């Protein structure tokens, strides 16, 4: 069974030869292949080669057409600061609170900033992997882009002080994400992960998520489905136990859950929801813990979800670039050796 078929069946809660395993590896792929983070974020072709080589080494089920998380801000006119050995950062946000958010231009993914590099990366990955591995694109969600486009304090204060204008901003950022996501699908991604950490209940109250962010996520996922995505993946880091049960209604097929969400409590909260889950080994465990620790955690997770199905073994968030190869290998090895129905009581 190839990886795409395995993930499709898992999303549909159908039996598989083994549970899928996805290492959320971006620039770690470069370091694992003897390249630098700087080289990885500067070229879609180099980054794709690193992703392919890292997958060949580890044997997980997906590759990511992801350079770093500043692409949209840079394309929208923000100033991005390159920093040796680590991911670039937004040094000056592209927008100011007084801007007229209704009159902004959507960056063209074919020409703006490094967005074309991400598209090139998606194409390289799909050409190399076909359906052997899931090619995952990524856009940042409307709330996360709003925070990045204004700066977090200005964005959150705008949400509280002038909700109407904040909604205009969210409409703009959702449109930016839609254009970029559709372009990634056209370039070869099987699906687009929507990365929306700023929508976490630790950042915004549930009412704001429900009334302002949720409708725009639904709109995004609808557009991706219509464009042929094989599924929709919503990734919100942090304590998301309160919002995860609502993901299906937004159009998400896969929901990421972070290390701080208890798997047993989550299962209870989800009830008979058909949300496929991915998670939740602590990201830092891949840096600081032993391979045996990670393997033990992976086995516990596979055990918890064995009967329910609809589970992809993964980390709770990105696996840090400086992670130990042995810990990632341990997670993957555990899933590859797991036979569904072997849960250990």
């Amino acid at each position, binding site marked *: 069974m190839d990886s795409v078929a395995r993930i499709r069946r898992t999303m549909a809660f159908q039996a598989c030869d083994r549970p899928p395993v996805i290492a959320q590896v971006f620039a770690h792929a470069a370091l694992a292949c003897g390249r630098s983070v700087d080289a990885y974020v500067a070229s879609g072709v180099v980054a794709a080669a690193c992703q392919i080589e890292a997958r060949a080494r580890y044997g997980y089920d997906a590759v990511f057409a992801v350079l770093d998380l500043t692409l949209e801000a840079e394309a929208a006119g923000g100033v991005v600061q390159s920093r040796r050995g680590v991911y670039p950062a937004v040094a000056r946000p592209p927008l100011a609170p007084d801007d007229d958010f209704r009159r902004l231009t959507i960056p063209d993914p074919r020409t703006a900033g490094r967005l074309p590099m991400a598209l090139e990366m998606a194409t390289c990955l799909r050409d190399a992997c076909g359906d052997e591995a899931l090619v995952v694109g990524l856009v940042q969600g409307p709330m996360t882009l709003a925070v990045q486009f204004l700066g977090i304090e200005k964005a959150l204060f705008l949400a509280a002080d002038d909700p109407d204008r904040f909604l205009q901003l969210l409409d703009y950022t959702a449109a930016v994400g839609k254009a970029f996501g559709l372009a990634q699908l056209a370039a070869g991604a099987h699906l687009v992960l929507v990365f929306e950490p700023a929508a976490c209940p630790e950042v915004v*109250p549930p009412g704001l998520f429900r009334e302002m962010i949720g409708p725009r996520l639904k709109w995004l996922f609808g557009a991706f489905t219509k464009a042929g995505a094989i599924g929709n993946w919503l990734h919100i*880091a942090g304590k998301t136990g309160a919002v995860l049960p609502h993901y299906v209604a937004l159009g998400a097929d896969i929901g990421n859950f972070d290390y701080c969400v208890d798997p047993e409590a989550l299962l209870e909260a989800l009830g008979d929801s058909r949300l496929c889950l991915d998670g939740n080994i602590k*990201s830092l465990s891949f840096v600081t813990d032993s391979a045996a620790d990670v393997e033990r955690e992976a086995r516990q997770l596979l055990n918890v979800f064995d009967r329910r199905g609809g589970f992809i073994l993964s980390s709770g968030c990105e696996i840090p670039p400086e992670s130990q190869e042995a810990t990632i290998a341990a997670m993957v090895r555990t899933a590859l050796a797991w036979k569904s129905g072997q849960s250990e009581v």
Partner: protein
Amino acid sequence: MPPELESLVQALTEGEREQSLRIVADLVSGGMPSVDIITGGIEKAMAALDKKCTAEQFNLLEIMLAGRAVMAVIRRLFPDDAALPAVRGNVVVAVLEGDIHDIGKAILKIVLTGNRFHVIDCGKDVSVAAVISAAAQCGAAAVCVSGLISSVIPQVRALKPALARAGLAHVRVLAGGAALKQCTVAALNVDHVGQTAFDAVAYLESMTPAVVCHG
């Protein structure tokens, strides 16, 4: 507690900046000393927010709105930072080299100030040497570092030995933020790892007065 102070606590915890300032203006014109407004109003509001955090109802937006109201009131009462009354100790806050995400530090600064600690903000992406220098200069009781990305861990681990080399072994080191809070005290080589900004305050308050008031 006088009803006006109760109203102030409620307005502050709800992040109502303008209403808080109106109540404070009334309290001041009624003759209430500024220090009583701090201890009876702001500190009570901070305690209410701490309780909310503990109950897992925390969200950054509400804390930021409350923080904005608290800082507006403090600025109104004490236009000059140095005039803050009965300061419990000096605390250096920083985001270390390699990390430029400083929202956690901004929240910590507000929570510490609201609890009568004098905060020396070193900024973000700063070297260990700059932090040590600031701690030495102000006679800090503690250094608090916030980190969103794991690549700053080596710098965090280097802080205590560097403080010791500078003759500042008594200065406590606290860590927090999305990446650092996943680590243990031993892994970071610090004195305390806080899950929230309020944890840091609780730790500082638990220190003996001799330590807190050092310098």
